[in-house]
């Protein structure tokens, strides 16, 4: 046991229920700057610092003859240890003269006993506090970090008009079942981002702003993203590809597109010039056709008929039927319109109208007359192809041209595009349902299909 002389002014036994004493240590014995007071499990310096505490401990070690300093500090009365039993310093649960304790006698009858501590207890305290704080911080920190750690970093995509690069980058890869995060901005003007054959709603891409979109793919394959805003005459060139790899993750099998397309199966040359020999005197009306109340042979009704027969074919065929005797030529055209109406639905026409307005009207015009806002630029850029008298976007109101075609021809034009005429291929953009809805809508430029009788 080592003893050190100190002066303990106003020292009282420490306890949880009484003021804690302050012990001023005689500097000649313990070269400690400042005072000591009990704190928690041990003794701390008033105005504590580690270097000072180290100095104190070094001194105490030096005083301990056994060299086995136990590392505890306490205050109390040597003559009445029980009085300090409740002291926060556990040194006094036993007599302070135990081996390894260091006693600093006070001036009063009470002694300030310092036997102990320090660094182990202090270290343990640091450890416990650190662990508690760490645990408290871990939960919110993990909640913030884990998603960011696991989630793939977003890919930044810049949009420019095609003359200046289009989408950059224009080639992406993705994996089935793993989200693809994109951040999009425009370097010049308003663009729109959408993925073909996807339910993902279009996202506007504004200059100076970032739009975020997350894509999820259920099926592997090649997907096309495209601009949905009419950004210029080469707007249709603004496309990029996403190669998606991996197994099919959805239980719903993706409907396979017919390969080859119907027009190829039928052996149709969709680029051949077409001119109908018979033209109606007015716009045929499906409602008027229905009002005639004729019972048409089943072969005329259904989607399959309009896919493989032109309206002109249908008119000629009907005209030769005994049931149309007594009808005017225009009334027979009304029957043709009625047949074309029977091959579609109001929902399909509404979908086709929407798609046409968003994607086709820029060139073909709202009225279908081939006079959209981009028509002049397209006409100037792409000269007429061999066999086509007219250059520029097709005039869908041209009865001579349209009534000689069938729905398979129109579907093929949409799927494949115009073969060098500037008309893009929409096969990777539209689903089959959308393509056929568009075809149905295109017939409304020839027939009044929307008014039921």
């Amino acid at each position, binding site marked *: 046991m080592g003893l050190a002389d100190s002066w303990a002014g106003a020292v009282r036994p420490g306890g949880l229920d009484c003021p804690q004493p302050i012990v001023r240590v005689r500097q000649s014995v313990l070269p400690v700057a400042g005072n000591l007071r009990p704190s928690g499990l041990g003794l701390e310096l008033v105005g504590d610092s*580690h270097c000072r505490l180290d100095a104190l*401990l*070094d001194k105490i*070690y030096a005083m301990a003859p056994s060299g086995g300093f136990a590392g505890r500090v306490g205050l109390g009365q040597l003559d009445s240890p029980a009085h300090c039993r409740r002291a926060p310093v556990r040194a006094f649960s036993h007599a302070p003269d135990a081996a390894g304790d260091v006693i600093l006698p006070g001036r009063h009858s009470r002694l300030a006993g310092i036997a102990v501590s320090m*660094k182990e207890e*202090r*270290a*343990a305290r*640091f*450890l416990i506090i*650190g662990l508690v704080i*760490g645990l408290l911080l871990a939960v919110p920190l993990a909640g913030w*970090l884990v998603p*960011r*750690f696991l*989630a*793939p*970093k*977003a*890919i930044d995509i810049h949009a420019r008009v*095609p*003359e*200046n*690069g*289009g989408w*950059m*980058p*224009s*080639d*992406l*890869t*993705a994996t089935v079942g793993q989200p693809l*995060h994109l951040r999009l901005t425009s370097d010049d003007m308003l663009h729109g981002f959408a993925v073909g054959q996807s339910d993902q709603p279009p996202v506007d891409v504004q200059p100076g702003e970032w739009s975020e979109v997350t894509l999820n793919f259920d099926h592997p394959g090649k997907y096309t993203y495209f601009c949905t805003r009419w950004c210029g005459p*080469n707007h*249709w*060139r603004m*496309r990029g*590809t996403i*190669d998606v790899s991996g197994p099919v993750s959805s239980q719903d099998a993706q409907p396979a*597109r*017919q390969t*080859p*397309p119907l027009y*190829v199966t039928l052996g149709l*040359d969709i*680029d051949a010039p077409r001119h109908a020999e018979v033209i109606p005197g007015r716009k045929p009306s499906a409602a008027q056709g229905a009002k005639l109340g004729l019972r048409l042979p089943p072969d005329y009704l259904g989607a399959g008929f309009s896919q493989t027969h032109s309206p002109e074919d249908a008119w000629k065929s009907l005209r030769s039927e005994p049931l149309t005797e007594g009808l005017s030529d225009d009334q027979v055209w009304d029957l043709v319109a009625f047949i074309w109406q029977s091959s579609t639905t109001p929902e399909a026409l509404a979908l086709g109208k929407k798609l046409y307005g968003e994607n086709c009207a820029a060139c073909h015009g709202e009225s279908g007359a081939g006079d959209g806002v981009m028509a002049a630029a397209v006409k100037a*850029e*792409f000269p007429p192809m*061999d066999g086509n008298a007219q250059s520029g976007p097709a005039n869908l109101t041209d009865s001579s041209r349209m009534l000689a075609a069938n729905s398979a021809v129109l579907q093929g034009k949409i*799927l*494949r*595009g*115009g*073969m*060098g*005429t*500037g*008309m893009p*291929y929409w*096969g990777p953009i539209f689903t089959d349902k959308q393509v056929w809805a568009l075809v149905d809508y295109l017939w409304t430029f020839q027939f009044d299909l929307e008014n039921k009788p």
Partner: protein
Amino acid sequence: MRKLSFPMPIKLLSLISVLMILAGVSTGCSGKADQNSPRSDLKMAPMTEMPSTVQSAPASVQQAYQFAAANPDVMQHIPCYCGCGSMGHPSNYACYVAGQNADGTLKYDTHALGCSICVDITQDVMRLLRRGETVQDIRSYIDQTYSKYGPSNMP
């Protein structure tokens, strides 16, 4: 004398842990890599040899012309599905190059300027070549992808 120095290591450990977490966050978030590698890795014909209409075309079209002109050995084995077989095009190469002039320079075809399928096929070829695919595999990919839209111009 025992060396007791727990607090500082604990603090250092905590600091190191935080730094490691931050480092993991910053380096672990690799995400989907951008696959748009530089175009210069493929053989490309100089733009100065191209017709003015090509030189003013969108970037993707210019690249397709440059690549096609410089890689007939590849492009003559790639079909086109735009319907140009009816025009006598035997391959996707013919959508860009009509033949040779008397001086040996290439005679360009403006067909691909207005053909999105032609250019998309060529862009696919470029992308797949960069990935190391063989011409045979690329042709299979082109056939599978574009036969949904039209007829091939190659047997």
